């Protein structure tokens, strides 16, 4: 028995989801090193359990809001990986036609209502989606992901307060990976937990969850989503996690103590889940097969993306306005 829907298969599926993201991110990093990728990229390797565990608690009417560190969220939501790669690779088939890039992966079809690259900006917007779900009576819940560093920006405060006062069906999930860029969050706050310790300021229920344990994340998010759906308002969750790579691109994360890295890497979400599957009697060879299968999927997705055409110049002038074009004068 596991959390989630209670089957071993469920956990194995989540493992596959996480592996898929990991593979995607490892490749992204490699492409960057090789100079194949332009622009920037913020890998979420190490944080897969947050995205996957949370997603498993969501339904078709729910909304996800992400940040520039968004790959795990769109992949967990089921967005086609070739289109994710294609977006990073500035191809026309990219989720955003190459116009968004790595920091703005969006798949409305899969409930991902944008990835926002100004720290904290998505939090008020997620409130709006939750507010709208309430008004329209859809039963939908808005889930906003953000980093530990985002808890110090004004938009965080305004959004959490509004959500609490309006009792919005929203779940705020802080992915506390201990660093905001090159700065340890501990030096930017005067409390222990950047998100959890702020919740009382909004009279908002909160919990700390092991962000490297996909079952724990799933359970916490499911509880919060249930509360939101029941009309009992928002919840703030703080998932403790860690990134495998640096902040972005090829940042080697020299600012992190070796010991800290070792401790956290030993608790990698894939390792944790593998161990758990083992405890549940799943043979290692079956998990290896999953690794291989998923690996092939991702590699094929990359292949497809690499073949895809570049955007056409006309695309640059499309979709500024809803009429389709860029007409600022009439």
């Amino acid at each position, binding site marked *: 028995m596991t959390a989630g829907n209670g089957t071993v298969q469920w956990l194995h599926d989540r493992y596959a989801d996480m592996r898929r993201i990991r593979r995607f991110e490892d490749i992204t990093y490699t492409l960057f090193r090789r100079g194949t990728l332009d622009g920037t990229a913020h890998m979420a390797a190490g944080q897969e359990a947050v995205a996957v565990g949370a997603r498993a608690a969501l339904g078709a009417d729910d909304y996800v809001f992400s940040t520039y560190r968004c790959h795990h969220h769109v992949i967990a939501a089921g967005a086609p990986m070739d289109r994710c790669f294609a977006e990073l690779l500035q191809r026309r088939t990219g989720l955003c036609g190459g116009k968004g890039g790595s920091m703005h992966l969006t798949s409305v079809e899969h409930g991902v209502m944008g990835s926002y690259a100004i720290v904290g900006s998505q939090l008020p917007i997620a409130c*709006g989606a939750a507010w*709208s779900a309430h008004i329209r009576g859809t039963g939908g819940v808005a889930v906003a992901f953000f980093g530990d560093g985002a808890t110090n920006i004004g938009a965080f405060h*305004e959004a959490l307060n509004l959500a609490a006062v309006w009792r919005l069906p929203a779940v705020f999930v802080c992915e506390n990976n201990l660093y905001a860029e090159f700065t340890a969050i501990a030096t930017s706050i005067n409390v222990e937990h950047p998100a959890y310790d702020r919740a009382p300021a909004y009279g908002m229920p909160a919990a700390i969850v092991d962000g490297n344990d996909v079952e724990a994340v799933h359970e916490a998010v499911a509880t919060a989503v249930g509360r939101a759906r029941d009309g009992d308002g928002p919840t703030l969750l703080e998932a403790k996690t860690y990134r495998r790579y640096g902040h972005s691109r090829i940042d080697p994360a020299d600012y992190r103590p070796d010991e800290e890295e070792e401790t956290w890497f030993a608790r990698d979400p894939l390792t944790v889940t593998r161990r758990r599957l083992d405890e549940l009697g799943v043979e290692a060879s079956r998990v290896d097969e999953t690794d291989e299968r998923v690996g092939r999927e991702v590699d094929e997705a990359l292949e497809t993306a690499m073949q895809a055409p570049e955007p056409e110049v006309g695309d640059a002038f499309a979709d500024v306005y*809803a009429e389709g074009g860029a007409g600022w004068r009439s």
Partner: protein
Amino acid sequence: MAELSYRYAVAEGLAREMRRDPAVVVLGEDVAAAGGVWKTTQGLLDEFGPERVWDTPISEQAIVGAAIGAAMTGLRPIAEIMYADFLGVCWDQIANQAAKLRYMTAGQLTVPLVIRTIHGGGVAKGAQHSQSPENWALAVPGLRVACPSTPADVVGLLAGAVRADDPVVVFEHKGLLGSKGEVPDDEHVLELGRAAVRRRGTDLTIVALSATVRLALEAAAELEGQDVSAEVIDLRTLVPLDAGCVLESFKRTSRLLIVEENPRQGGWGAQIAALVAEEAFWYLDAPITRVAGESVPLPAARGLENAVLPSADQVTETALKLART
């Protein structure tokens, strides 16, 4: 046709759109129970109830953000920012989020959002309550910008803004709230991007916006007595800019005077001047002239405020000089 005040036209325009479309909701500080500090949302709570008219905490980022999130998920929110100066505290949400989401997502997200706010001086409230920040918005592709100058336009442009699928910032003007005008009883919708020729003329074209339309019309009346025939264009919206209307008029008059309330530096009038100097150069018979606010923050004292805001006399004098150049 009924005569309404500009102030009441706002409430009426909002109510009409809310009656028409249940997806239209209103939010802002003191917009519900109090009917707005400008009384421009008066009556909405009573008619539409608390699920359609929402008071918010003092949290402008949350106000605009919530409106964006609601707009992308099926509602048509109208957010009030009490003074246009306060756009400064939520500028990220407007300029970086609302304006760009559709483009960044290649059309996956649309943000049919209206932000209503009030701009302009003439109320002796000083530098943080009197600005005309439509010029910030002018520089941000993805936003639409409307500035109604009459009660009828308030109703028409609000309807146009609510029905547009883009984020529109509507600037109402403090100085116009008490002014009156006829408003059509039936549905009255103005498409964004259509200027209005408020007065026909042959000797020069005066381009104005919002409160300066009145200055231009007063000046034009005065000029008539001096045998100068001025055409007065009310731009109505800065984006889309009705370049066609301006160019057409200018090509007939060959003289252009722009009247803007904001400081001259970086004002929208420069954009009009640049447009004409580039695209209708061969028609120019005289310098393109701007009457603009002085390049200072607005002072509180009325005497000083008057000294730095454009006046009808200034428009008349400048126009006379221009017509005789």
